[in-house]
């Protein structure tokens, strides 16, 4: 299954850009499982497991241990710590 990865903030520099596509094996049951698979598969993917990143699925923040019903074309965004204002 093909999904879209998005990177916001400093993480862009580590992942080499703001977005990239990824091919996923099977259907990871939780966000944690998906991230573990990406960590192995992508260049610099280890960093995706860093605690301080927040993760959004199709523009909604999701807890890492929450159940995942991933579908083709879903967008997974990795968000560096926010620094607004």
């Amino acid at each position: 299954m093909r999904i879209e990865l998005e990177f916001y903030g400093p993480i862009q520099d580590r992942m080499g850009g703001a977005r990239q596509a990824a091919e996923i094996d099977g259907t990871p049951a939780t966000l944690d499982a998906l991230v573990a698979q990406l960590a192995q598969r992508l260049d610099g993917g280890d960093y995706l497991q860093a605690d301080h990143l927040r993760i959004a699925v199709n523009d909604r923040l999701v807890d890492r241990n929450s159940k995942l019903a991933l579908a083709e074309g879903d967008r997974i965004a990795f968000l560096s710590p926010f620094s607004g204002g």
Partner: protein
Amino acid sequence: MTDLRVYLTGERLDLPALNKALPDTETVGAVASFTGHVRGSDGLTALELTHHPAMTEPALRRIGEIALKRFALQALLIAHRHGRMAPGEPIVHIIAQAPQRRAALDAVAYTIDVLKTEAPFWKREWRSDNAIWIEPTITDQVEASQWLETET
């Protein structure tokens, strides 16, 4: 009557216009505001704020709704800029109206403190062609968490 206005814009914030945006009702006793500006330092060329195209405005709105309720405000305005800004330009402008001063003052402090760590923005400082990302400070996290811990 409670009134929440959220503006997220790539244009320069027009502070005098924003100051007139909230209704001047006779039951408002106290108005507090906060404005954050790009602080010029060490040859800073520009500050760039990236936002999330879908998530940032709802996050600002959620922060505003909690503040309205928590401090029993009559009105709250949150205006936040994104894009590239020159030193001196306003980044964020917050106005709280309440019957009493403590509510208005606390609501403004709450909103800016929480917004810093809970609204999806990312900052980059430009010095001519070099950009560095600005990570939130420990102080930012502490100040936000003091409000957030008491929230649940």
